């Protein structure tokens, strides 16, 4: 595969994941802030978003414990190890707590847990932006 097509496919996969996660986070965040109706979101959408986030977080947790086959998740794990000051064990504990809270619909009781997924999205987004830059803006 050429560098361009490799990058292009990386950008496509990562962009899709980022977009889905961002929308899911928006849903749970809107529920915590009591804005579901204001933003045109439903309880059904909230259930779907929570379940998608749990699936993603479980995959990530597994990848933090042993290698993952999913290139986007592997890249994210690499970035967590490289860019984050937080120890891996702390990441794992936080992710487990967040999964339990999402499953039990208790996020409202500890909204600070959202910061965990915010940090993950921030890393994913930075990597994605860099890939888009490499694909479309190499001369700038």
């Amino acid at each position, binding site marked *: 595969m050429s560098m361009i097509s490799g990058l292009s496919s990386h*950008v496509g996969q990562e*962009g*899709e994941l*980022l*977009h889905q996660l*961002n929308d899911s*986070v*928006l849903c749970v*965040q809107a529920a915590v*802030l009591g*804005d579901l109706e*204001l*933003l*045109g979101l439903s309880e059904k959408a909230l259930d779907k978003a929570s379940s998608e986030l749990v699936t993603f977080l479980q995959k990530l947790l597994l990848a933090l414990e042993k290698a993952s086959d999913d290139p986007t998740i592997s890249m994210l794990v690499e970035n967590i190890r490289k*860019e984050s000051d937080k120890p891996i064990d702390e990441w794992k504990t936080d992710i487990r707590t967040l999964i339990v809270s999402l499953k039990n619909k208790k996020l409202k009781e500890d909204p600070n847990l959202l910061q965990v997924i*915010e940090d993950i*999205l*921030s890393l994913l*987004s*930075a*990597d*994605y*932006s*860099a890939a*888009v*830059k490499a*694909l*479309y*803006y*190499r*001369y*700038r």
Partner: protein
Amino acid sequence: MANFAFYKAKASELRQRVLWIKDSLDRVERIHDEIKPWIQERCDYFEEQIEKMERLISSGNPAYLPRLRIKHVPLEEQLLFVSNFIGVMLREGSFEEKFSKVVKRICHECGFSVRDFLIDFTTGLNGPAVRAGQGRNPIFYVRDETLASAFSWIPLFHEIGHIVVAQNRGPIIQSLVQIVREHYRREREAIGPVDENTRRRQEVALNIAERYWTEGVNDIRLEELFCDCFAIYSSGVAYLFFWLDFGIGFEKYPKFVNECDTHPPFKARFEACWRLLPESIKTSGFGATINTLWEDYVAASFSNTNPHLEYGTVCHQQLIENLAEKSINLIQQFWPSLGQWNESPPSKPENVGMEKPIAEILNGLVALLFSDRDSYREMDRRVLQSLLEE
């Protein structure tokens, strides 16, 4: 709040690009049966996403800013992808001819004429660029988005800077190299009374930083910085907004000194431009908004640094300021007829006539992005129609 103002402007700009795709789709003569519905479906999706952005903006709750920040970049990427797709289908060999009028006019307004040049859409997919050399006809590489929105013409001023340098590269680069050498000479002298090992370490760091700018082909970084200064000098605050937009979207390490990149770090480029902006614009409403957005962006960005080339040593604020000021002196020396575009964006941009300088038109467009999105769309369409189609 400045961040919401930015995303409101961004949503308008993205909406305008979707409209261009939809309009263009009607003009494509030959298209595969399956492609047209796919592009229509993409446009519906883009509009839905932009609406979501606008709903978040209306909420006015800063807690949703990260959602906006993350939402806009994949949208930009997908829009670029579809625009390139449409561009290829629309291309009938006339794009180059249409766009060369714009390039000629910008060159003319910058005070010099480029009679023969080539415009290449096919290899411009990685963003605008120019290849220029003394005695050679320049080639502009541009991509299809330049036909979708006049907003994407702003970086052309930087590219024209490369043509300007090509005409007098020797003296320009030598003068800038002198500034760098002088800066590091003073820095070496300023090393205080320290032990021999510390002195040696500091001297080595300064030597490496000096070579980053001056050794062999590394002087291209001075040329890039010069071209930024040329662009801000000739196109004004619109260029600074363009950079901010690019940074927020795509530059995760504004302070990273990359030895493999022929461009200096993003922060240094932005700050050179900011330095050259007239005080009246810096302190105006528009300038102050850009400054707030810039500070928020840098504070939120990753602080990754190159351990071998520390940002503060390579891009010391005084050095960047000296290089920016010297660049302006050189522009005034070599192109005395080129006036500085030092005006604030027009107060009623929608009334700017198409006979006005392109810099004024683009500054007006950027101002409208922040104030009135309907007028922005109308003006952008008017600019494309008058400057490309007539």
